[in-house]
């Protein structure tokens, strides 16, 4: 018996059984299959959005208001001008409110609150807010600003509801980034005799800026796609208007009301509006990711 034969016999017991190999390759195939399954909806959604949405896009689609005519095939149903402008106005005002407050809370948590009892409570409630269903923010604003004041729907009320929705997202995202700013950097600035507020404004915030912009943009993108908080706060209207004290249209609400229409042309307008909305949100996402790539932290 030569050496080769001998060691062959000895090593035989280490061989991997066919059953184990099969299990391994089956499991790999299942994981790959599940990943492909996960991506199928994305492909289908993008495909149908493009096919249906681009079909309904035209120059007048963006330059006319919806007419409110949802029944008669003969007359024009109009476009989505008021919805696009409304979304931009409402989200801009919401951002103007939520970003400074959210940022302020995050700065307080990291620079002043730290691990105090109050800071822990604030963190807990911010987390609670993150999980609150978006429609409840609409109800909240309704209770406070519509039941409470006896007035009616208005664009700024929609903005407030969206601001409440954005607030926890902005706070948590920027808090995480601010915590990444090295403590040594703060101490170096403090050791130079700079007062705390200058250290925050001149050292901490600029260092964290790219990361914070990313978090903020993702929050804005999320708010722009929300329908539920706007239903009972900004409501819907047909006309373009620039007065946030009035009823105001928005893309998600326009899509939502068009979906329920029995008229094909109106449903097609919903596809066109959906494509416009998704394009806006994707643009914000892409910008956010590009900026985050430039961040020096993390």
């Amino acid at each position, binding site marked *: 018996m030569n050496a080769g034969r001998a060691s062959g016999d000895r090593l035989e017991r280490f061989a991997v*059984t066919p059953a184990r190999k099969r299990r391994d390759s089956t499991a790999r195939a299942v994981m790959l299959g599940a990943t492909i399954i996960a991506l199928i909806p994305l492909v289908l959604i993008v495909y149908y959005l493009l096919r249906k949405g681009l079909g309904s896009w035209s120059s007048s689609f963006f330059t006319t208001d919806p007419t409110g005519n949802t029944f008669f095939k003969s007359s024009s149903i109009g476009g989505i001008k008021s919805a696009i402008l409304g979304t931009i106005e409402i989200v801009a005002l919401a951002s103007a409110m939520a970003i400074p407050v959210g940022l302020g809370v995050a700065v307080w948590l990291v620079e002043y609150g730290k691990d105090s009892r109050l800071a822990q409570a604030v963190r807990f409630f911010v987390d609670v807010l993150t999980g609150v269903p978006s429609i409840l923010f609409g109800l909240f604003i309704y209770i406070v600003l519509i039941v409470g004041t006896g007035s009616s729907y208005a664009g700024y009320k929609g903005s407030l509801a969206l601001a409440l929705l954005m607030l926890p997202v902005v706070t948590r995202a920027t808090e995480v980034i601010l915590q990444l700013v090295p403590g040594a950097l703060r101490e170096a600035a403090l050791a130079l005799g700079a007062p705390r507020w200058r250290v925050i404004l001149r050292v901490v915030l600029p260092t964290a800026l790219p990361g914070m912009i990313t978090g903020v943009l993702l929050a804005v993108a999320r708010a722009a796609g929300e329908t539920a908080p706007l239903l009972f706060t900004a409501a819907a209207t047909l006309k373009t208007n620039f007065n946030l004290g009035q009823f105001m249209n928005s893309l998600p609400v326009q899509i939502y009301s068009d979906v329920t229409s029995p008229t094909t042309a109106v449903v097609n307008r919903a596809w066109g509006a959906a494509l416009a909305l998704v394009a806006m949100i994707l643009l914000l996402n892409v910008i956010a990711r590009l900026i985050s790539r430039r961040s020096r932290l993390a």
Partner: protein
Amino acid sequence: MRSPRPSSGVADLESDSRSDTDEQRRERIAPGAGASSPTATATAAAAATSAAVEPQAGLGVRLEQLRAFYGDLEAVSGIDLDFRANEVTAIIGPSGCGKSTLIRCINRMHEEIPGARAQGRVMLDDLDVYSPSVDVVAVRRAIGMVFQKPNPFPTMSIFNNVAAGLRLSSGRRGDLRPKVEAALRSAGLWDEVSERLDEPGAGLSGGQQQRLCIARSLAVDPEVILMDEPCSALDPIATLKIEELIDRLKARVTIVIVTHNMQQAARVADRTAFMLDGRLIEVGPTHEIFTRPADPRTEEYVTGKFG
């Protein structure tokens, strides 16, 4: 030395009958066991001596022109080295000399690092573990490994840690216990843990954890055990226990140990290899390497001039 039979080797063996393999394995755990009830006798035989390490002839490992890379960086450049069966070979050298990379090439753990690859041959007896027909999983079963930091599975009990490797291959659950016990005895841990086999392995002390990891690799009865600085995270007393264990285990397996501690190499190794900058400078009986090194660089290193 290459086998004349093209089908010999781990890769092609799973098609062969497995019945005699099981018999063989049982025998190796407890030689002298009666054919009638091998498991019962295994327990009895293991119980007789606290450190039951039954001698057997192991298999040697030979490196032929082994080169290892991380991307474009060459960490091991063209090493020929023999690890003799049933001996302890220590690999010493300053940090970054490639000794850990070298030992990770032997059971092909090196290739788990992204961008890492190896060239050349690693012969386990007459089988090239890098041959394309060889299954890397079988290689790692035949060549066990003990890592720098004790790494018992934190979610498993002491018993399950030792049984983890056994469970992979054996369908039968019933006879795990004697094998686990035998492995724990071989690792000199049985007396310390026999009362708490169901407690988590992470609850043991560092030295006990490392012996648990040794028991874990012994349980699958490998031919070779690689140890990558197994005592670097341990205190001197725990280190001593591991060293005693290594001394006993070499009756059963071939051991390759990487160490940065020259005293340790002197204490446990039959032969010692000295590496520098990815090259093998010198290999020989430990006594000679430490007293009469042939190469001046070896002498400088072992006398503490650098490293």
